[in-house]
């Protein structure tokens, strides 16, 4: 029997999708249990499985015996506005989830890079935060718990649905940013906020150094923007660098911050955007990172932001860059060679700055790895985690470079 036949017998016709150009059979299990069944079988049979979401972010090009996509895990079992919590399956598109939350007056404070339909599971697995990281923290801060299936088909729950939870070890945080190397996320419990009653965006154009200074002044003035993002001209499609400031929350707080913004603008003038312009600005930023072949993020201390931006410009060219200087995180997208990326990662490691490769074609991804240049002692732990949560190495993930 072929893999196609076996899996069809296991999961039914409904789970079979058309194969992509690389002819790898693709399956879309319709429930978390079906994911467990499929991975359990793959583990026994020795099949190598590639995990996909909506297929809009990571290239679907990893060599595998079969592809498992979470796109049919698209239910939202619970939205609880009075508790500000929700439970959603991993395959739901972020745009759909956002819409459903908004209908109930709730809001998820994350705006990851990628197209609008990128799945929740993909965002969690790669821990890719966007500009809102400045005000609302990294992806892990929005998670209350996850359910995942290990590489050998075990279904594991961690965390819960309540605001605080320290029962047991934190497997949720292992999955957030694990790039699927330690299991496939099937269900996510989320921490929500109320839909901001005021949400405005201001832009300031200028030289990068000047804008960095303005960013620091904004922080020093004690303003609390939801996002404070420095965007390169190419990415913003403008002549000069752009500082985007997003204020979101209660009208009183937003008005107070708007008043403070003028004082911190360092002589320049912030331009307010109309709602649809603001939406377009942030969308373009997110989508920009899904169209070039290579995207990575780095994280340093805030005071190193300038130096790191210089370094990126020098080593790779300042193609498309977006930085959240106060949070110390920078995202880059463009074209880069294996050699250059590896050299950059080593240089950065010397500065205590990790580089996480978010997307790249398989040959580059497998050579460079999502992770690498580990600090002392991390390598053996990651290997141990891989062996524990995917003992048969069924999950094809370019964890570390070669």
């Amino acid at each position, binding site marked *: 029997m072929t893999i196609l036949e076996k899996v069809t017998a296991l999961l039914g016709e409904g789970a079979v999708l058309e194969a992509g150009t690389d002819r790898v059979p693709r399956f879309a299990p319709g429930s978390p249990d079906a994911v467990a069944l499929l991975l359990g079988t793959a583990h026994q049979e020795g099949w190598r499985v590639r995990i996909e979401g909506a297929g809009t972010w990571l290239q679907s090009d990893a060599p595998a015996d079969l592809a498992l996509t979470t796109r049919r895990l698209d239910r939202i079992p619970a939205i609880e506005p009075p508790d500000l919590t929700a439970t959603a399956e991993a395959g739901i598109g972020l745009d759909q989830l956002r819409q459903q939350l908004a209908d109930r007056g709730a809001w998820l404070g994350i705006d990851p890079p990628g197209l609008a339909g990128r799945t929740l599971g993909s965002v969690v697995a790669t821990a890719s935060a966007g500009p809102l990281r400045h005000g609302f923290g990294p992806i892990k801060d929005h998670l209350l718990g996850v359910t995942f299936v290990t590489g050998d088909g075990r279904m594991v729950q961690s965390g819960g649905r309540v605001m*605080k939870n320290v029962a047991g070890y934190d497997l949720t945080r292992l999955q957030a940013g694990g790039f699927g190397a330690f299991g496939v996320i099937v269900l996510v419990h989320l921490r929500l906020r109320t839909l901001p009653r005021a949400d405005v965006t201001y832009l300031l154009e200028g030289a990068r150094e000047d804008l960095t200074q303005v960013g620091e002044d904004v922080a020093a003035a004690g303003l609390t923007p939801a996002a404070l993002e420095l965007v390169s001209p190419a990415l913003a499609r403008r002549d000069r660098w752009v500082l985007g400031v997003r204020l979101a929350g209660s009208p009183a707080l937003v008005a107070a911050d708007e008043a403070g913004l003028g004082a911190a603008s360092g002589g320049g003038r912030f331009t307010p955007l109309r709602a649809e312009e603001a939406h377009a600005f942030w969308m373009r930023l997110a989508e920009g990172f899904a169209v070039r072949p290579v995207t990575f993020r780095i994280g340093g201390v805030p005071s190193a932001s300038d130096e790191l931006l210089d370094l990126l410009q020098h080593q790779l060219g300042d193609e498309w860059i977006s930085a959240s200087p106060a949070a110390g995180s920078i995202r880059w997208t463009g074209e880069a060679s294996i050699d250059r990326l590896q050299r950059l990662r080593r240089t950065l490691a010397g500065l205590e700055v990790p580089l996480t490769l978010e997307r790249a074609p398989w040959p580059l991804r497998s050579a460079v790895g999502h992770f690498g240049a580990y600090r002392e002692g991390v390598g053996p732990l990651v290997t*141990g985690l891989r*062996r524990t949560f995917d*003992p048969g190495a069924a999950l094809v993930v370019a964890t570390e470079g070669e």
Partner: protein
Amino acid sequence: MRLLYSMTAPSPLARDLAAIVGAKHVREALAARVTYAMDGLPTHRRVPDLVVLPGTREELIAVVRLLAALDVPFVPRGAGTGLSGGALAGEGTVLIVLTRLNRIVRIDRANRLAVVEPGVVNAKLTAATKPLGLHYAPDPSSQTACTIGGNVAENAGGPHCLKYGVTANHILALEVLLADGSLVELGSPGGETWGPDLVGVFVGSEGNFGVATRITVRLTPVPRAVRTLLADFTSIRTAGEGVSAIIAAGIVPAALEMMDQSCIRAVEDSVYAAGYPRDAAAVLLVEIDGRNADAVVAEADAVADLLRTAGARTVRTAASEAERERLWQGRKKAFGAMGRLSRDLVVQDAVVPRSALPDVLETIYGIAQRYGLVVSNVFHAGDGNLHPNISFDATDPALKQRVEAASAEIMSTCIAAGGTITGEHGVGLDKLRYMPLIFDAESLGAMQALRRVFDPEERVNPGKVVPVHACREWASLARAS
């Protein structure tokens, strides 16, 4: 000369440890060891075989390597203010006390971070950074005594975690000493991780994955404007509804705390009397903070209106910093004041969905009444994190049994409401028995397997957190060598 200590000769292990840390920092006499038999939850008691207090990071490393070489299990301990029996070392186990590792290594004002040793006391870190306009935001009630290392182990919370997040949200990087004596560097000062988020995995691991030797914490600007409200209610239910009203209105207070009458009275009888009305069924302590004074006042007024509508008898605002401090001291020392009610105390730490608070509270008091017990509630209402405390006299065995039964019933009530068994105190020994109520055998097995990646021999803090008998076996558990 005065008698020196113990008449019996030190054991070979004590001698070897003394060679590392000095004889006066090794405690082998029973009288010294019994003082370490408990943490902040004295219903659990275990006397360690040996206590060692290293004074430097290097000494600590040498101690752990020696224990690794001899295959001796050990338990790291901070100030011993934990509330789950987590930092207890039983027979055959060495207790490593980290209180002497109390140096603040570095404060980086520009990047808002500090590097500290594990024994630094929480409140002392904030005191050291306050002059720079910064503070360490997680503020467990025991912050005047507890250590950052202990906070990391337990993923400690506190009143202001409602807005600012728990310990896990404030740890950037860790240097960790594993059970085998090897050092691991997790995370980076910018908060990005090297590979998977092992900082997130380590925080809250209850001292079972190793010992944090250096901790890089995020510092938070001190808010410029603060308003503290005290609202009192004539029924618990209306107080609970007041909480729900605030959350549903989308307001995120810096803190939102509740205390019931029994707790109010214990505090008012103590040196920390805060002026809470003794006849109130419950009080809510609500704090709003931010940059802009006008906005903070506007939001505080909105909260006051919501509370009045929900049925608050009075809502008053702290008029001065001194009054605010007094209101908070009363709340933070409430747990310690429980000794006024009875000599023994069972402390719970369940979390429920916030909308379930009014119902759950009512059920809890019903249970207490049925068993004829005194239950006092003091808790983080805004998070739905309950601390029902049962006061009793443990010398009465029948009473003790009733307390056990009532505790179990309270716990099942919270779980049935969609909650969890511990929000910030940790599992330790105390909540082991409840773990199978919220996790299946597979998930418990996964936790145990995770632990064995860090500590394959289960030599650090054995027997805590995961009830091993309830785990499903995981085949591949070895850590890469």
